[in-house]
Structure formats: C-alpha cells, structure tokens
C-alpha cells in the first residue's frame, strides 16, 4: 500500500515535465501546426532555468531564485518559438523541418552559451536552490493519499492546474473555439472572420513557452543544473503523449501520467528480490512496450486535427 502511494508520487514527479511539454505541444497542434520542436523548447527552458536561477542565486535571491528561473524559461524560449512561428506560419515552411531546426538550434546554441558563460564548462554550476516538495498542511498527513497526492513539487500542482485551465479555454471559451476551428478547417475560420495565421502564430508562441516550462521543471526538480543531456528524448515522448492523448488536454495529461508511471515502475521492480534474474533491459523496455500494447488495445481511428501540418494560404485552391 505504502509502495503504491510512493509509486503514485513518483509518477507525478516524472510526469510533471511531460505534462507541461505535452500541453504546449497540444496547443500548437490543435491550431494546426505540427510541433516537432518540443524537444528544443524543453532544452531552451531547461537551459534558461539553469542559467537564470544561478545568476539569481548569485544576486542573493535564494529561495526565490528557482521561481525566477522558472518564469524566465518561457520568456527566453519565445525566441525559438518565434523561429518556428515565423518559418511555419508566416513563411509556410514545412512544419516538420521547422521543428527539427528548433531542436537543432536550441541544443547547439544553449550548449554553446553554457561554454561561453561558464568558461568552457559542460554544465551550468550546480544550483543550491531548487524546488523541493511541499507538503500541503493537513492533507499530506492523510494516510495513502497524503503521500500520493499532497507531497509534491509546487510545479506539479501548477502543471495539473494548467491542464485544467487549458481544457477550459479549449472547450469553453471563444478563444478555444477559434483555436480548434483553425486547426480543423482554417478556411471556415477565415471566412467566419477569424484571423487564422495570427491565431496560429500565437498558438505556436504559447505552445513553445508552455513546453519550455517542462524543461525548466527537469532542471529545477531533478537535475539542479543544465547539461548536454538534461533533455534527451523527453520532448519526443511528450509529442507521443499528445498523440496518445488524442490531442485532448486531459488525454495528453493522462498519457503523460502513463509514461510517468511506466518510468516509476521500472525502478521499483528492479529492487524487488524476485526480479533479480530478469535482465535489466526488460525493465528499460517496459515503458515503451507498455505504451504500444495500450495503443494496440485502445486505438480507434486517428483523431488528429484535420488541418494539422497544412499551412494556410487563403488564395490556395
């Protein structure tokens, strides 16, 4: 029982970064723009959080430093999001390649900056102030649920709240209606008076900024520094979560949790006595194979936004 509570806790810890990134990807893709740049946005966010928090520490901000780093991440990442938006929305570039460019450029430039800023070092200095888990008074004392749900990083609560907010915006507000219309059938949206490319542009920016929070989360909850490998593949897993979650905020949230649980389980099983003789690789395989199995048994027809990947040009036949 205790172990399950701990497993749930671990799931949230792992999933938080993925939730942010997946939500960012979701917003972009619902507007009709493929977001293969999630990895790059996460890198940028992780980098910014590492660097800014470090300098905030140097300036004596102490406990406020990680918050400053966290909030700085989307601001800096705006640069990369702009790149994706300008190329794929304004200039109708292939959205896949534009995302790949974001990944390549974010990775190379942030590593380069780290070397410049920290005298050739391969990582930012170790942060002294990062997020620590907060125990919500009273609730965290409860048996089981206390450990499982009420003793988490503050950013985890933010991620959960964000998923709900985005759900609300997407399905209950005019903005959401327009956003979905733009991704489904931009021609209709345009003739109904919605500025399609402007909305897509903003969606790409917003998506990039939100995804960057995922990167910042990795730096500020797990790594305490930023290095070459801080983000290696999480962005793609987040993209998979968007698709797995059928482009729905709650679905993507659930998919991110699923990956989280698969990761958390992997460690837990390894330390069980009975599992000693199973090759470790089987556990490493687990999250990925499990995902495929679940997809095989749940898949229905594709539910991607109909205009995903198609640049909108009013004059085009």
């Amino acid at each position, binding site marked *: 029982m205790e172990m399950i509570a701990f497993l749930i806790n671990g799931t949230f810890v792992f999933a938080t970064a993925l939730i942010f990134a997946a939500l960012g990807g979701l917003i972009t893709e619902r507007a009709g723009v493929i977001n293969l740049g999630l990895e790059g946005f996460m890198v940028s966010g992780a980098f910014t959080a590492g660097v800014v928090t470090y300098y905030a520490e140097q300036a004596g901000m102490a406990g406020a430093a990680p918050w400053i780093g966290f909030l700085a991440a989307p601001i800096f990442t705006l640069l990369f999001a702009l790149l994706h938006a300008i190329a794929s929305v304004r200039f109708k570039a292939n959205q896949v390649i534009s995302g790949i460019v974001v990944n390549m450029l974010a990775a190379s430039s942030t590593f380069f900056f780290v070397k410049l800023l920290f005298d050739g070092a391969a990582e930012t200095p170790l942060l002294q102030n990062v997020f620590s888990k907060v125990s919500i008074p009273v609730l965290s004392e409860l048996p089981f649920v206390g450990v499982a749900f009420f003793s988490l990083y503050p950013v985890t609560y933010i991620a959960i709240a964000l998923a709900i907010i985005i759900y*609300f915006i997407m399905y209950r507000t005019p903005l959401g*209606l327009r956003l979905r*219309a733009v991704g*489904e*059938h931009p021609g*209709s949206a345009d*003739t109904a*008076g919605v500025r399609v490319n402007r909305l897509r542009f903003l969606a790409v920016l917003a998506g990039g900024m939100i995804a960057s929070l995922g990167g910042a989360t990795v730096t500020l909850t797990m790594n305490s520094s930023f290095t070459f490998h801080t983000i290696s593949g999480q962005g793609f897993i987040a993209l998979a979560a968007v698709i797995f979650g059928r482009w729905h905020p709650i679905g993507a949230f659930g998919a991110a949790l699923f990956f989280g649980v698969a990761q958390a389980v992997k460690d837990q099983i390894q330390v069980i006595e009975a599992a000693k003789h199973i090759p470790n690789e089987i556990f490493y395989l687990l999250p990925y194979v499990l995902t495929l199995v679940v997809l095989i048994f749940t898949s229905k027809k594709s539910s991607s936004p109909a205009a995903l990947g198609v640049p909108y040009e009013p004059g085009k036949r």
Partner: protein
Amino acid sequence: MTAQHDIVLELKGLTKRFPGIVANDSIDLQLRKGEILALLGENGAGKSTLMNMVFGLYQPDEGEIWINGQPVSMDTPSKAIELGIGMVHQHFKLVPPFTVTENIVLGMETKKGLALDLKSSVQRIQELSDRYNLNIKPHAVVDTISVGMQQRVEIMKILYRGADILIFDEPTAVLTPQEITELLAILKGLAAEGKSIIIITHKLKEIMEIADRCTVIRRGKVIDTLQVATASPEALAERMVGRNVSLHVDKEPATPGERLVEVKDLHVKDASGQDMLRGVSFDIRAGEIVGIAGVDGNGQSELIEALTGMMKVDSGSIRMNGAEMANLSPRVVSESGVGHIPQDRHKHGLVLDFTVSENSVLKSYYNSPMSKLGILQENNIRKEAERFIESYDIRTPGTEVLARSLSGGNQQKIIIAREIEANPKFLIAAQPTRGLDVGAISFVHKQLIAERDAGKAVLLVSFELDEILDVADRILVIFNGQIVGETTPSATNEQKLGLMMAGKLGGESSNG
C-alpha cells in the same frame, strides 16, 4: 438609371492575375439595394475569383471596391463581415466536427464572463431559423447533417452576422430539387426585406426564376448585363459562350440488348455499422442508360462504391454477364470492364498533385503498354494523355502540368476521357456534370449517350432531375436504402419524381 444612393456595392476596374492567366480583367459591376443579381459565365470565367475579392479572400491587383458610396480596402474576410458582406462559398466553409451552433457563432461569439455562451446563441439561431423557415437543428454536428442542411447553415451564418450584401457562389449545385425550391424562396424573401444579393449559378432556369439582372462574364471580362425579365435562357447561354448552344439533349430512343448487370438484394453497412442499402435489386441491359434519382444520402454513394468494389457488401449479389462481382477489389472490378466516373472528382477521381498524363493512366498504369516489367513507359503514357486532350478538347497548357491547376470542367474531362477510353462494358457515372457550365454539360451528356449507343450499360446517378429526365432511358428512384420505384422519362415529370424521391409515391413497377 438608379439613384446613386441605391448602389450598395460597386466594383471599379477590378483586375486579378494568377500565374499565366488574367482571371479578372478590369471588371465593373454594380449591385443595387434589394435586388438579386446573377453572375453567369463558363467554368473558369472568373466568377468565384471576383467574389472572393469582394469578400477579402483575394487581393485585387488593380481596381477599387466601393461599399455604399465609399471606397474600401477589403484586406480580410473580417473586414468584409464588418462592412455587412456575407458569402456562401462554392465549397462549404464549415468545421465538420463542430455543431451547427458552434459553426454559426464562430468569430462572433457571445460571452458570459470568460466563458462561451452558446445558450443565448442557440436562442437567436432558433428565432432566425423560424423567421426565415430554415429549419435548422442547432445541436447537430455538421459532419452528420445533409448537404441541404449544411447549405442552410451557411445562410444562417450570414444572417446571424446581420449581413446586407449576400453573395452565393453556386449554392444550388449540390441541392435536390426540393431544396433548391426552398432556397430560392428564401432568397426572394431576403431580397424583399431589402437585402442585396449576388448569386452565381450555371442553371439558367434559376436565373430566370429569381434574378432581376444578370451580368455575364467571359474569360475574365464583363460581356454584358441583361435585364432578366426581357431575356431568354437561350440568349443568356449565347452571351455566355459566345456562340449558339443547344440546351436540349438530342438522342435516339434506346435499343436495349441483353441483360448485362444484375443486382440482387444488396445489403451494405457503412463504417459505423448503419444499414445504408437494404435489399436493392435492379438490372441494366446493354445499350441503355438507367438513371438513379434520389435525395442525397439515401444510399447512392454506397450503391456506387459497392458496385465498384470500393466498399464491402454484406449480402446480396452483383452479377455482370453472369459472373459474381460482389466484394471483389476495385482493381478486379475495373479490369472486368466497369468504368466509374466518381461523384467527388477531387477526392477520388484525380490525384491532384499528379500530372495530367499520370492521371490519364490512373487505372492502366500497371499494365502493358503503360508499363513493362514494372517500369513505366513514359512515352506511351504521354501519348495516351495527348490522345485524350485531343479528342476530348481538354484545355491544359500541356501533359506535364498538375491536374490541380486545371479548372473543374477540364479536370472532369480527364476523368471522363480516362473512363470511357478504357472501353468499359458497364459505365457508372455519378454526378458527372456537377458544377459544370452548360457547354461542358452538353458535352458530357453527348458522351454518355454515345456510350449507350455503342452498346454499353450505363448507370447515371444524379441529383439533377433535369439531367435524369433528359439523359436516362429508365429511372429508378432510391429512398432510404431501397429502390422505391421505377419509371421512364416519358411517363413521369419533375413533380412526380420529386414525390417519389421523398418516399411519398410509389412508381409503376414494370419489372419488379
């Protein structure tokens, strides 16, 4: 001359160029308050382009747009909407997974606090629906409603936005006769209320029925503007193409031969498991054209797809020359001599990003002489395309341009050439003239009749009663997945057919 203040929309010297073509060449046009103005012109004459500029979708290269006596710059549709212009496009602009209400309020939402307030919108839509007799279901998902309802939703979108200048681009091309009648009535009502309307249509009858004036466009230029009351359909057609066209289909009586196609008790379910065909039986003889009349959505598409192997048959049989054809693959069906002019030329009939030559061999590319040992024979393919272009008068810059770049009429000609030249025993033509101008229509009809006269079995599926009555030798009426009656053109008329299609009147069954 009408007084200046009566002109709500004026176009002065509008010019629009596309690569290699001047789509609109210095067009002048006036729309008066409360009138219905028809725009008439061949396929590719530039009608849609002109209206798209008025609605802000395209930007003119030259010229000015004046609204209520003021020059305006129409840079986006939202600007047009703001200025009281509404447009129903040739291809519907609806978001399929959204509800009717969501589609209507999109871009003009009402809010309650931060949230979308659909409830009050539904109320308003209901009111408008009642007032204009649009009969709209606000909560239905657009994906699932009939084309006619979609058309009315488009109209509702305009009304909801309070537009005064209404533009309709071929609104009747996809409607049934009943729906057309209803629509025309609605338009008249709107004009009577003082709204000003421009309607594009290829159907002269409709122009005669509702338009006050008709502006004729040929190759991007305004040729003339006529008072409809004093003009004849023949005159309009003549102005449009620049020569005499016969509006009648000339054909000899059929001389049916042996029974070629036999369909027995056909049952088909769609993807969601719903019964779409429920025991359809009929047969077609060599040398006759059988028309299938019916309202869209009563099983026509499923019937065609089942006959061509594109859809699974649940039970029943399809025999051609006695051989069973049900549930064979499309490839085998076509190889057995079934030609198919599909209903949706963009979705099925053509690979739009293939060249004209590649599209010419879409069904024969894999066989000698188009390919040998798995390798395409480019020379033969090109020659085939050249042959089609020559004998079907396809207007294209060459064989190696993309099909996408041709006008709708010419795209259709590629398909017709391909399907007829394959020399099928059985030709299925679904909506073969949808969206075509009168010249093109008469061309297609001639081809169908020529096929019949060459001893082929022809199945013509159409929502156009005119077409069915003019071209078919025998008429089957489909309703709710069943053949509910059979008749001949001489034994019926539009009214009777219309009633049968609505399931209200049985036909005289000659061979049950």
